[in-house]
């Protein structure tokens, strides 16, 4: 038997034991392949508008993904190595030299890597179509996705991971070759000493976090680059010291508080965590930082998507819109209607409203780059009702302007908060002076007439009519507005119409596609991040279980029931799962706050969604880990 065959037999026998590790590796390979392959996909290449976005985004995402996967593989590998120390020790007792064992393990790891690459590529190719279909669906691309295998992506993935696995094996070799036999054999039983804690570091960790949070929140409004880098450095540093010292101090304190410690299984859970901290604070801190990154990234893409969806109705209320003179052009309107009637779409709503173009006015307030319109309040009220705007009645009641007052409706497409704001600004228009009271968020003309608008009383409108030109805005809503490309082309052929025609399908392509792709790739990457951080917790907790097995055996001997053991384990594992999640969430709340300042938009809901999504995945992993933990310590 040579090293090669021993390694091979080992791998074959341990396939089940390393199931989790191997699955994680296979998934990593499959996901990475799909990210690379997405930019080669012929159907996406056809959808030219989207292609640039896909290429740019998937390149950025696959780089991030790779960095993360390297960390993940490195990490889980060292955990698995530590789990196998005893087995390695037995080899050493049989008289095999350390370097030989190192070679066996390294070859075995490389084998595992090759299996993972092969299986991962296969899984990646099989699910590639599903991945692309999801991408196309979320990005709202109207393309049919066919089965496709990208040779170059497969090659690139294969080589990249081969290099990673090779480096990991080399590291494994050296780690074993230079270790001592006694350490190998007693790896799990190594005497644990109570950790030393530094109060200074504990205090500084809070200070650093404070500085980091402050810099992060300020970054939204001031020097973004410097402040955000400062924030990241301080928060990461603070997090490590927080876990290394501050939390140890807290737990140490709890242990001296006998009324807390001497209460059921607390004595077991707290003592285990306290001693574990020294060994595991780096892992926990890393998980906290990763969780924060993931929540922030997911929160950001969700926010973008959410924002676009929320403002969609305001920006694109109509399927088609065009502008004609105030007297109207019945012939043109009939022509438009007959073209639509001839298509497969039906007209759901026809809206006509007259407006004034306020080309000259003076005000101290900056009304969206000077271009201003005016409409009658009665027409505004009708449009809101026709468009089924949620707050139509509320707007009519609450904000009805009295004579000399006006409401301000922001230009569509400007990023703004979704709540109404008081402004109280005067505006001078030839003979009329108006007081603009409130900036309200409501749909009116949409992007077909990209200008801000004043809503005035019908009498004030009549007065203004003397000084300004009046026009007529026509908006039409048809069924299935996103499938109106052919109709759009036909309508553009109608001569006077093409100058002002604005169609939904055109707007749709531009914005939704891009946001959709960013959203999909971004959230997919986040999903990989979540799964991987949760798996790191899984590996870490299970290696804890092996160390704690002896302790729980003793506890069971002195009369701790299985029920109590289960309770102590859930508490112990629960605390180590919850700590990084809670701290990561707090970090991300501050990060998203600064994003909120930049976007001037409340991101609470998307942030909560992303925190909940991550918490849910963690919960599932927590339950699985607790179960395995119990199985390990209760097995004889």
């Amino acid at each position, binding site marked *: 038997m040579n090293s090669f065959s021993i390694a091979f037999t080992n791998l074959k026998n341990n396939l089940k034991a390393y199931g989790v590790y191997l699955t994680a590796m296979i998934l990593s390979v499959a996901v990475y392949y799909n990210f690379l392959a997405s930019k080669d996909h012929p159907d996406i290449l056809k959808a030219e508008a989207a292609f640039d976005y896909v290429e740019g985004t998937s390149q950025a995402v696959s780089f991030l993904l790779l960095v993360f996967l390297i960390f993940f593989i490195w990490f889980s590998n060292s955990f698995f190595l530590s789990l196998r120390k005893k087995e390695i020790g037995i080899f050493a007792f049989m008289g095999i030299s350390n370097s030989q064992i190192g070679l066996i393990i390294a070859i075995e790891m490389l084998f595992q890597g090759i299996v993972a690459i092969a299986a991962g590529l296969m899984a990646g190719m099989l699910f590639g179509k599903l991945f692309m279909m999801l991408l196309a669906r979320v990005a709202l691309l109207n393309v049919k996705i066919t089965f496709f295998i990208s040779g170059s992506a497969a090659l690139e993935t294969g080589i990249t991971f081969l290099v990673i696995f090779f480096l990991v094996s080399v590291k494994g070799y050296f780690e074993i070759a230079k270790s001592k036999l006694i350490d190998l054999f007693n790896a799990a039983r190594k*005497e*644990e*000493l109570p950790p030393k804690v530094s109060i200074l570091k504990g205090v500084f960790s809070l200070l650093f976090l404070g500085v980091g949070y402050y810099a992060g929140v300020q970054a939204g409004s001031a020097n973004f680059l410097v402040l955000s880098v400062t924030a990241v450095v301080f928060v990461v540093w603070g997090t490590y010291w927080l876990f290394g010292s501050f939390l140890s101090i807290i737990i140490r304190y709890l*242990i001296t508080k*006998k009324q807390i410690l001497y*209460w059921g299984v607390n004595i077991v859970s707290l003592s285990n965590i306290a001693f574990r901290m020294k060994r595991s604070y780096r892992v926990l801190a890393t998980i906290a930082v990763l969780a924060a990154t993931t929540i922030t990234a997911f929160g950001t893409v969700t926010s973008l998507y959410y924002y676009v969806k929320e403002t969609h109705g305001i920006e694109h209320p109509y399927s088609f819109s065009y502008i004609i003179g105030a007297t109207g052009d019945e012939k043109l309107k009939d022509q438009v209607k007959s073209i639509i009637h001839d298509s497969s779409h039906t007209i759901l709503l026809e809206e006509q409203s007259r407006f004034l173009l306020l080309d000259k006015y003076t005000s101290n307030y900056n009304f969206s780059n000077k271009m201003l319109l005016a409409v009658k309040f009665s027409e505004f009220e009708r449009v809101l009702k026709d468009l089924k705007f949620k707050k139509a009645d509320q707007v009519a009641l609450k904000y009805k302007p009295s004579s000399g007052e006006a409401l301000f409706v922001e230009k569509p497409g400007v990023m703004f908060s979704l709540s109404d704001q008081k402004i109280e600004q005067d505006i001078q228009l030839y003979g009329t002076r108006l007081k603009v009271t409130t900036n309200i968020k409501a749909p009116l003309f949409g992007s077909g007439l990209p200008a801000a608008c004043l809503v005035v009383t019908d009498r004030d409108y009549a007065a203004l009519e003397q000084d300004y030109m009046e026009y007529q805005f026509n908006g039409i809503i048809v069924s299935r507005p996103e499938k109106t490309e052919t109709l759009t082309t036909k309508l553009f052929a109608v001569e006077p119409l093409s100058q002002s025609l604005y169609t939904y399908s055109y707007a749709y392509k531009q914005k939704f596609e891009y946001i959709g792709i960013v959203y999909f790739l971004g959230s997919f990457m986040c999903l990989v991040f979540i799964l991987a951080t949760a798996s790191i917790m899984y590996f870490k907790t299970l290696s804890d279980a092996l160390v704690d097995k002896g302790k729980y055996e003793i506890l069971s*001997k*002195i009369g701790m*029931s299985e029920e109590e053991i289960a309770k102590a384990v859930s508490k112990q594992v629960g605390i180590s799962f919850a700590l990084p999640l809670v701290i990561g969430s707090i970090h991300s709340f501050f990060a998203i706050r600064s994003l909120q300042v930049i976007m001037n938009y409340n991101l609470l809901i998307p942030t909560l969604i992303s925190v909940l999504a991550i918490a849910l995945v963690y919960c599932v992993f927590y339950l699985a880990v607790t179960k395995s933990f119990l199985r390990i310590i209760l097995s004889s």
Partner: protein
Amino acid sequence: MSFVIETKDLKKEYGSKGVSFPALDGVDLSVDKGEFLGIMGPSGAGKTTLLNLLSTVDKPTSGKILFEGLDLGAMKDKELAKFRRNNVGFIFQDFNLLDNMSVEDNIALPLALSKVNHKEIGQKVLELSTFFGIDLHLKKYPYQLSGGQKQRVAAARAMITSPSVIFADEPTGALDSKSSAELLQCLSSMNERYRTTVIMVTHDAFAASYCKKILFLKDGKIHARLDKNESRKELFHRILDLLAAMGGNTNELF
């Protein structure tokens, strides 16, 4: 006369059907309250099996165990765990202290699990640690103690629930002779002072000489019995004589 423990025709077989062999083959015994009982015998005689059965860690194949008149065979696993924690204490050869708890917390453990008031626990810990001479080490961790000190911590932990019986399985097995003598003296005075029944398995004749009564097991049956009536030294010699008569190799006893 009240017995703490009574067994009737206790049998325990190991292995599956066909290839089973009896570890205990019909043991009848009764232990008085406040007894210090030693169980001796060669390897494989069934000493540890008997201890495990008496202490409810294991269940007999047939026969009855009455604990203060209570039939243990009628109890469910969950009840047994609680029963064990409240009514019996254990001392093991390898101490079985938890490395990650201070001496104080190790002793407090069984009461803490039962959610006894922390002040009451503190008082009991102090009382017992003083009794066992480890009160100066309460804040230390087990790795900072000597073997003898560790075993006295284990004894204090066994005593904290004020159990009616303490089971000691080769308590001196990992100790040097000086620490052994100290520990046995402790157990002996504990037996006197708290009137705690002690059942100790040992194959060390010196350790057994601290007992008030000794049972000798051989091939799963009670082979002989010795009662202490004079000095410890005299008992020690009678044990040696009996072991020699039983045909065991006396050398292995030291």
